[in-house]
């Protein structure tokens, strides 16, 4: 075909393009209208396209056209709902990033996280943000609920809004819980094992519930996949759905409630009238929110870069239960309840009852008044409830109700399986190869860091002996060089009365903190000539 024959076609395309350009509009605002806005001219058409932008555009339609002035002070809402959504979006964005690298199988999950943090640029930052924002989101949800309770914003027409809010609380906790397992480290594995162990206590269908959750009697390949799918598909989908209902009721149906004094107090009429003035969403509220979002994002990134590190313990080991197994912090209250009694009552019925109570709150509290002075009973009960949850949470930690032998506690403080103990804080080269004996080794011959740790250990054992915990205790610390840049530290503590000694073996690699800059040659300490009692005592 000759090329000139294409000319009419080309011209018609050109014409179409021009037409599109002429009528190009975003949310109903076309070029002429944009020009009028910038020139500070009145709307070009009637009804005003600027108003229609709100009414017709889906994205802008999601937000209300105005807020009531009385409900906008920062100290009234603390923007807790807003921040919850902010963190939720942050979770979606960082979560999509993590999904690219994460592999939901027991063989690969931990490896993929290691790969993410060591080989993917900014991967560790993304993971830190995801973890931090998740915890912040839970905190915001809880505080949002407390604020709504204190200002009695759950009454009258807003009752159902509260119910959807509690549903969002449940979904948020579910998101946090399901995400907890995914790194597949010891922390994750055992927290979720504890967390799902209640399911078995459900009467009649306990076994089935447990199987549905874990995919097998123990958490494994199937369980990980289920938690993963719940975390990235089911729960986010539910969250967005219920969030839509919740926000629709807040923003479109009833607006944010006015502070109680403005609604039912005896404030002068002009003040109450001013409170009902409209604050337009665009630009006032929108710009305020954008400023909040940028400040919050800046803070989150700064915290995650310099302060917060998402934990990653050793690879999950179903055969080895760590010393302290705790549920995720937001479920510690259930673990605390479990320490009080029956697994079925405390692990199933009481938590279910608590959530039902929260759901039913607006229907149980029939008092229509909102001012603090008119609802003393509700506030008293609410305060007691929050205190009780705090106490249960404390009871869920290992500080409460768990008896641990003194030697085990000492071992845990000096050489824990996970995290950093006192022995880990000693610089590698200061871990001088040698054998150190309780009350016999002179700390003056040791490097200061090792001497401090050793003296502290002796003091600790002496203090325990003085209390009668460890009568006639002896202790040995052996530091051996095992390979280049690898030392084995054996801490052995025993009492004269018992046959077996407590023993803790710890390996420390020179570069365990990733710092490859130190290259000094190790020194030797004189080895005592006598090799009697403690060493030949058999250990378990």
């Amino acid at each position, binding site marked *: 075909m000759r090329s000139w024959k294409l000319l009419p076609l080309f011209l018609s395309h050109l014409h179409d393009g021009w037409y599109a350009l002429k009528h190009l509009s975003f949310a109903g605002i076309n070029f002429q209208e944009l020009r009028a806005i910038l020139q500070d001219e009145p709307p070009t058409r009637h009804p005003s396209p600027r108003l229609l932008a709100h009414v017709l555009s889906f994205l802008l339609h999601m937000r209300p056209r105005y807020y009531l002035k009385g409900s906008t002070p920062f100290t009234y809402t603390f923007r807790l709902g807003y921040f919850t959504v902010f963190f939720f979006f942050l979770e979606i964005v960082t979560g999509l990033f993590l999904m690219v690298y994460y592999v939901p199988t*027991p*063989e690969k999950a*931990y*490896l993929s996280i*290691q790969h993410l*943090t*060591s*080989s*993917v*640029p*900014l991967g*560790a*930052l993304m993971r830190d943000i995801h973890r931090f924002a998740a915890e912040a989101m839970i905190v915001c949800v809880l505080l949002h609920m407390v604020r709504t309770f204190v200002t009695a914003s759950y009454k009258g027409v807003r009752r159902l809004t509260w119910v959807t809010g509690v549903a969002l609380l449940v979904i948020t906790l579910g998101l946090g819980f399901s995400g907890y397992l995914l790194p597949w480290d010891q922390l994750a594995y055992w927290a979720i094992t504890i967390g799902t162990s209640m399911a078995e206590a459900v009467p009649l269908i306990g076994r089935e519930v447990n199987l549905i959750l874990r995919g097998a009697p123990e958490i494994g390949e199937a369980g990980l996949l289920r938690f993963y799918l719940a975390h990235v598909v089911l729960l986010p989908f539910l969250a967005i759905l219920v969030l839509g209902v919740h926000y629709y009721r807040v923003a479109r149906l009833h607006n944010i409630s006015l502070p109680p004094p403005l609604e039912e107090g005896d404030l002068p009429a002009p003040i109450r009238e001013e409170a009902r003035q409209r604050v337009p969403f665009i630009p*006032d509220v929108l*710009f*305020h929110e*954008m*400023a*909040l*979002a*940028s*400040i919050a*994002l*800046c803070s989150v*990134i*700064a915290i995650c*870069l310099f302060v917060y590190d998402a934990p990653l313990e*050793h*690879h999950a*080991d179903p055969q080895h239960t760590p010393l302290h197994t705790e549920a995720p912090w937001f479920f510690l209250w259930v673990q605390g309840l479990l320490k009080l009694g029956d697994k079925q009552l405390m692990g199933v019925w009481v938590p279910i009852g608590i959530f039902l109570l929260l759901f039913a709150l607006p229907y149980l509290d029939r008092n229509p008044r909102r001012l603090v002075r008119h609802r003393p009973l509700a506030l008293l009960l609410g305060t007691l409830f929050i205190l009780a949850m705090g106490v249960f949470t404390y009871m869920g930690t290992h500080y409460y109700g768990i008896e641990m032998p003194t030697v085990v506690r000492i071992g845990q403080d000096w050489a824990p399986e996970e995290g950093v103990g006192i022995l880990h804080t000693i610089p590698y080269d200061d871990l001088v*190869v*040698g*054998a150190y004996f309780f009350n016999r080794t002179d700390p003056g011959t040791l490097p200061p860091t090792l001497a401090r740790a050793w003296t502290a250990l002796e003091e600790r054992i002496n203090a325990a002996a003085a209390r009668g915990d460890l009568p006639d205790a002896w202790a040995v610390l*052996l*530091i*051996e*060089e*095992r*390979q*280049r*840049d*690898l030392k*084995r530290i054996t801490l052995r503590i025993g009492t004269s009365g018992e046959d077996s000694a407590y023993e803790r*073996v710890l*390996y*420390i*690699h020179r*570069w*365990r*903190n*990733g*710092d*490859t800059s130190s290259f000094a040659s*190790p020194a*030797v300490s004189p*080895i005592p000539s006598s*090799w009697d009692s403690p*060493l*030949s005592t*058999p250990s378990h």
Partner: protein
Amino acid sequence: MHRTVELRLGLLAVIITLGLLLYAASVEEERMAREATAQQACAVEVGAGLYDQHCRTCHGADGQGVGQLGPALNERHFFTQRLQEVGWAGTLEEYVSATIALGRVVATRPLYAGDGVVVMPAWSQAFGGALRPDQIRALTAFVLNWRATALGEVTLLTLEIPRVRLDDPQIIAQGQEVFVTAGCGRCHTVAGLSDGAIGPDLSRVGALAATRKADTNADQYLRESILIPNAYFVQGFEEIARENMCGGILSEEQLDMLTAFLLSLH
């Protein structure tokens, strides 16, 4: 807060955020390298614990090998020759992890024990063993970390801790108990203790042990004989030894005790 102040703060936050991200990006290479180093170090630490638990019985506490039971891993030959010796096409790391995972059904080199029986079991859970993939990776990292000492680049400081003194009467008494309970007496005679006639008489083995093999002292000879009975045949017992393998399994402590006991027989 006044709206313009707020907007300026917001704008400032955006600029700071960009600055933070630029900073993070500029140090990211270094941070990733540190992280990779730390992960490798952690794998070596974990591998060391696993080695103590599963491997030291046959390969020795320091990878020096145990007689003909398990080859030395902490030696030059292993790091320089082994791949050619067995004709392995991949890297040493792949060879080590494959060997741990799959085990050895037959000895690949005639030097080592395993006459038609499984020499090294498969350790991977996939093949009925005890170790998960991450544990095999950690063990491999630990074994390869012997390179520096094997090639003689560094010499480690040793802390000599004799587990037991072999002339300790208490240990000798415990060794006698091991001799009885492990059933050694069914084949071996020790005057006044047992009258087994299948194996050599051990009544004076403490005195004879040092003379049996050249370059082998009494202690080493006894340990080797207990671990690998057919490493050396006493004259007249060649056929008997091949047919009557000693199936006893001793712990390291029991081995020490038994050796002490046998050394005391003069």
